[in-house]
């Protein structure tokens, strides 16, 4: 029996979010829904990264007054994944903005949001 920790729950939630996100991006037909599914996927990846940085019984990686450096380095959660996730949130927002802009442009041309119409394959 594996002991349930908050880290394990984080991994489970991340896996669920990634699976739901990819399934949504593949199977849903509406472009806006696909974009929402992409934000879910990106959230899942963020959660995975943060959960990897977690240390059981650790502290928040902020050096508070009265805390010795050795204790801090032993107990603080990893800072590096937090930096990565901060970048990923920003990149996610900009990707979403670009996707929405492209969808608006294609809606003006085709008058629909259906991916099966907009992104129909062409023989080439």
């Amino acid at each position, binding site marked *: 029996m594996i002991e349930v920790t908050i880290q394990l729950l984080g991994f489970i939630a991340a896996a669920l979010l990634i699976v739901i996100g990819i399934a949504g*991006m593949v199977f849903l037909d509406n472009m806006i829904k696909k974009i929402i599914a992409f934000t879910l996927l990106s959230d899942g990846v963020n959660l995975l990264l943060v959960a990897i940085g977690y240390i059981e019984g650790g502290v928040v990686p902020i050096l508070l007054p009265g805390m010795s450096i050795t204790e801090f380095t032993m107990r603080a959660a990893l800072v590096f994944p937090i930096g990565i996730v901060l970048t990923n949130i920003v990149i996610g927002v900009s990707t979403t903005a670009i996707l929405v802009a492209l969808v608006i442009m294609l809606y003006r041309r085709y008058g629909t949001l259906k991916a099966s119409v907009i*992104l*129909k394959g062409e*023989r080439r």
Partner: protein
Amino acid sequence: MTSIATMYDKLKKYLDNFIIGRGYTNIMTGYITGELQFLIFIIILASLFRIFSFPLAIIILVLTGAAAIYFAPTIINIEKENSNELNRVLYWFLIYFAIIIAITIWGG
């Protein structure tokens, strides 16, 4: 069993598959070259299986040759499968990913 006449029919059907419904266009040369090239490519690729096991390579070689003649003209199918539809690409992508993970984990 395989007489010259049936071979001829097979070949004629093979060539007709290009022409019927498309008409003779300047792209014909490209299609026929592509077809022959792909045939040779996959036969060479099939023979690459000899690095795993030699009998397997011979079996796969024969099967590939048979399949290539059975499914001819292959180039039409490749062209169809080459569609740039997003979901089709995603489908192939996920299949590739699954195969790669399976091979590496099985091999290790």
